[in-house]
């Protein structure tokens, strides 16, 4: 995170610096909005990552479906969920991962009014 970006406890403030860091990753994920690219990706994930110039760290996070890692190394959440969609995972599934809960626990907390940090 850049020194110009406000620091907010426990929250990602996605900024230009993270976006620069995640450039290749986000570009690859963005390409998945195209159905032919989704097929190419599914057919050979590793080759697809290489073709898009992902770093070793980015590629590993993708292949391992390490959702938390992806968002920490510059993946924008709106790009990361393109990969989740391929795996038929919902935003609640990812919410569970990010918070160390099961999907059901995470959903239950939301249904109870959401998580309160006030």
């Amino acid at each position, binding site marked *: 995170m850049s020194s110009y970006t406000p620091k907010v406890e426990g929250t990602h403030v996605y900024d230009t610096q993270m976006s620069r860091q995640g450039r290749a990753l986000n570009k690859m994920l963005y390409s998945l*909005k195209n159905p032919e690219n989704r097929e190419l990706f599914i057919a050979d994930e590793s080759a697809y990552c290489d073709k898009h110039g992902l770093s070793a760290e980015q590629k590993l996070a993708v292949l391992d479906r390490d959702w938390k890692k992806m968002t920490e190394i510059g993946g924008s959440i709106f790009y990361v969920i393109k990969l989740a969609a391929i795996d038929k995972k919902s935003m609640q599934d990812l919410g569970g991962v990010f918070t160390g809960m099961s999907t059901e626990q995470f959903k239950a907390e939301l249904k109870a009014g959401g998580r309160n940090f006030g």
Partner: protein
Amino acid sequence: MAEITWGLATSHVPSIGAAMDNEKTEDELWKPLFDGYQPAREWMAEQKPDVAIVIYNDHANALGLEMIPTFSIGTAEHYDVADEGYGPRQVPNIVGDAELSEHILVNLVDEGFDMTVLQELDVDHGLTVPLSVYTPNPGDAWPCRVVPMLVNVLQYPQPTADRCLALGEALGRAIRSFPQDIKVAVFGTGGMSHQLSGERAGLINQEFDRNFLEKIETDPESLSQITRAEYVEQAGSEGIEMIMWLIMRGALGDNIRRVHDTYHVPASNTAAALALFAAEKSAEENTDAAIAQ
């Protein structure tokens, strides 16, 4: 001259669209939200605009991160529904209003708003879900033309809330100076509080949301003074989308009346709300009209 007849503030979370598309609106989880929409929908159905200006943000479906405009406006005659990763949503494509787009663009640039012009744009849930909130069953075509206006809310630095309100005021002047007798509705979309990633994922702040829902009518200036850091801290990384409501609010002007609102938790990972305002002609405009007669 064109007239702004109403403004709608509404969440645009994809799951609201999915609930409609998959006929889950009567399910226990979703029924309260859609019941809450009903009175607004009935009122809007009686007050059909010719054009809707929809203020929203793209979610990695049309704009890549290589080029991030603070404010942009579509100037095309048609916009297709985007494929967001599992095929396009089965709703009608969008008919634009290129002439009104260009009028707004020129007037905003003349007033010192540094717009980006989008001659091509696929529209995602940020635009189509609010249209579905307005018209759940459009059939083959949406009931109005649409001018999309996009805001960068994904990457810091977002525009300040204050700049959004100022843009809205200029947008209102631009619309009202359009020399066609058409009715225009303005949609401010996004929000309410939500945080998708990180350890605070699932954050909902009802107090912040309810204050915002009230003040968007009575005291938008106070909301325009909230810093970006406060929006993120209070309403979550994605809750900052609420700044887009201020653009709608600025366009409506001083003389508005709340028709209906509703608030619901959760819609997917977010608090969801709707607030509908009728724009009445200002005293000044009525005087102008009287003088003109």
